[in-house]
């Protein structure tokens, strides 16, 4: 049976800056099924970051309904959203966002700290996640001792460690050279083959082509939704 991970109905997001209103999202309808590999593309200002934030439960829509694994997100408060982010979402950012002064293993452990997983189990699970992205040999290295590609792998391990419903990657290769980008994308490919749902936000067609479904945004609307 197909499990619906994301169901969005008529999502609107309105930002107010002073007296002007900006409609960042203008009625998004989207559903994502478990195991999909989705790329969201669009020029800057198209609303892809806003959509990404709402999918990631970092923000709530102004109007419309958003169900994440059947749970109604738009009605949730800060605390519940934090809980959902912890359990269901794994973030991968363009600039890695690792904690400096903290080694790779502890960085990967971080989400488990907030879900109150005991220390020993945390270490084991974090090490497993590092193994999945092939960087367990660098577990005790500080971020500053790692290359960009390696840092991004640690970040992917951190996204994986809670077994989230969705891995949400925002321009994951934006700060990497071509070789490292290829490595990172092959990790995403592998994770998707293993059944992880991946949503990728990018403006690079070369990166987007790794995904099996492509969504293009313009002016806060989906203008194309095509599957390979």
């Amino acid at each position: 049976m197909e499990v619906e991970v994301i169901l969005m109905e008529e999502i609107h997001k309105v930002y107010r800056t002073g007296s002007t209103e900006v409609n960042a999202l203008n009625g998004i309808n989207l559903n994502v099924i478990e195991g999909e590999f989705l790329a969201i593309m669009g020029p800057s200002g198209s609303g892809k970051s806003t959509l990404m934030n709402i999918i990631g439960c970092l923000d709530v829509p102004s109007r419309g309904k958003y169900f994440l694994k059947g749970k109604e997100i738009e009605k949730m408060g800060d605390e519940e959203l934090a809980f959902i982010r912890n359990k269901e979402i794994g973030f991968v950012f363009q600039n890695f966002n690792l904690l400096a002064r903290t080694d790779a293993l502890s960085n990967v452990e971080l989400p488990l700290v907030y879900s109150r997983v005991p220390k020993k189990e945390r270490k084991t699970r974090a090490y497993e996640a590092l193994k999945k992205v092939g960087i367990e040999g660098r577990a005790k290295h500080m971020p500053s001792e790692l290359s960009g590609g390696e840092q991004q792998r640690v970040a992917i391990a951190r996204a994986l460690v809670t077994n989230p419903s969705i891995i949400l990657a925002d321009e994951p290769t934006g700060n990497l050279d071509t070789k490292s980008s290829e490595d990172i994308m092959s990790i995403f490919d592998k994770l998707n083959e293993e059944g992880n749902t991946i949503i990728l936000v990018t403006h690079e067609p070369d990166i987007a082509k790794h995904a099996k479904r492509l969504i293009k945004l313009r002016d806060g609307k989906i203008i194309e939704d095509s599957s390979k």
Partner: protein
Amino acid sequence: MIFLENFRVALKAIFSNKMRSILTTIGIIIGVGAVVGVVAIVQGLSYMISQELQGVGATYIIVFAEHDPNNPDFSGKDIRITMEDAKEIEKYASAVEFLTPIIWRAGYIHSSGRKWSGFYIGVNDYYPYIANHYVEKGRFITKEDIEGRKKVAVIGRTLVKELKLDPDPIGKEVVVEGNPLTVVGIMEKKGQMFGQDQDSVLILPYTTSQMIFGEISARQMRLDIKAKSPEAAELAKEQITEILRRTHKIKEGQPNDFRIMLQEEILSTVSKILGSITLVVAAVVGISLLVGGVGIMNIMLVSVTERTKEIGLRKAVGARKKDILLQFLIEAVTLSLVGGIIGVGFGFLLGMGGAKLIPNFPEAHVPLWAVGLALSFAAIVGIFFGIYPAYKASSLHPIEALRYE
């Protein structure tokens, strides 16, 4: 668990900015250091004084003229305790066992070209029983010495040593304000009291000191009294009051022009004085801790701004508001406590060093409660001044925090 984790993160943040952390906590270090240092000195002092006063016993009473220039009832009047007062008390106060006049003067004692700064007390033959201080060698002053205004003296150990009177000081001559006195006895060792070497004493018959010092000495005379028993001390005080009001011709309703203090009252007066010293210091410390707290708040605000991105990330991976609040609060308290601990060490050295630097000062004594109190204050300052930056951190919106450059 999350608590320990936060503590670990806090220590890491503090130690990765060592210089900044130390500078930030200087206010706390000084504040806590001052508390511990002063308490150490005051405690040492009060410990010694109470030991000393307990030594003379609960039967000890002193009587002296009211010399309060701020009191309009007595200013401008020449109020004295006289030998006639003493004789009346001896005669009529049944609860009094012994009584001695005390004529106290500080000054130099000379002997064959040497001199030493000490003090002289003119007393009668009961003095040893009242002060609980006896002759070790030779004899004390006798009734004949007093009646004959004999030029004799009993001296303390320090005088013997400093004036080089050994091996046999008895019979040697010492000079007080031009008057040669013959040493007839050596007092037993007594040590320090009120920052003064009690063994630099020269004791002489009060009649002789009246003769040497004249008018001035009469004004400064006080009476030291031993009650018959500790229970009789209160009664003795009542009897003395009655007698002195009569001899001083004080009308009913008029205040006493003299003061009578029991050992307990002396103790409580001393602790009152020490208490007010402590209070003044506490106020200074309060201000210093306030300044320290503002420093901590300032640096925590900087830290929150610097780590906006980290806060965003933590929120993205599931930290709740209260997790972030706790993290920064623990960091502020840890910072403050680290300052507090350094301050305790600093205060300890300050107290010990201070006590050593002041000559004839008792050893400092740091009670555990003072350390506990100082550290609790540091923690409270940390919480109080850490709450706003922590709240600010916890209220950051995750998206804006992540986007912050």
